[in-house]
């Protein structure tokens, strides 16, 4: 079956420095979409980025990610972390061609300190 791996449970970074959250996946489907969801404290998860195009950079709210099918990765990056970026981040994949499952990684908590 499909799986998503986020290796870091917690990432801490100083405000203004770059940050990278790792995401790799295994899937049996050829056509799929990838997401990063963000969950702020006491709020519902919401979509941050999505992509289904290989080697194309996707950007939103200062974050960017590039889907690399050759390495089965969809890492999330930001060049300058802000205090307001502190949240729980989930990488996920979706089979939208036939099935309806959305599979999530275990999540990475990002803590940005002053």
């Amino acid at each position, binding site marked *: 079956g499909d799986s998503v791996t*986020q290796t870091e*449970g917690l990432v801490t970074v100083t405000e203004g420095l770059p940050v990278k959250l790792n995401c790799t996946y295994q899937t049996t489907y050829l056509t799929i*979409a990838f*997401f990063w*969801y963000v969950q702020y404290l006491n*709020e*519902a*998860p*919401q*979509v941050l980025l*999505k992509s*289904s195009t290989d080697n194309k950079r996707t950007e939103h709210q200062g974050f960017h990610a590039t889907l690399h099918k050759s390495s089965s990765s969809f890492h999330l990056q930001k060049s300058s972390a802000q205090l307001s970026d502190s949240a729980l981040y*989930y990488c*996920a994949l*979706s089979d*939208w061609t036939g099935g*309806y*499952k*959305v*599979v*999530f*990684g*275990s*999540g990475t908590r990002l803590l940005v300190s002053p």
Partner: protein
Amino acid sequence: GGIITQTPKFLIGQEGQKLTLKCQQNFNHDTMYWYRQDSGKGLRLIYYSITENDLQKGDLSEGYDASREKKSSFSLTVTSAQKNEMAVFLCASRTASAETLYFGSGTRLTVL
């Protein structure tokens, strides 16, 4: 725009009790989902429903039942609450053709 409403926000039950969580959406989405959120384990799929009266089991369905009697609502029943089930339960929905999931704010379950 739309909203997903989960009730109750907090649910306290006794071990062995049958408990029901409810979810309503006004997006007019076809597909609805129940996820369980445990710290360090991510979001794990319990049940999903492609359309009214359809039910599909996820990876964590044992110990749970679900019901989708209307397009706008999807309920989840914990058949016999256990202490290791304390978690946040998230409802989500999306259209059949689009990919983004929209989430409710969750129900936090505590089992005494």
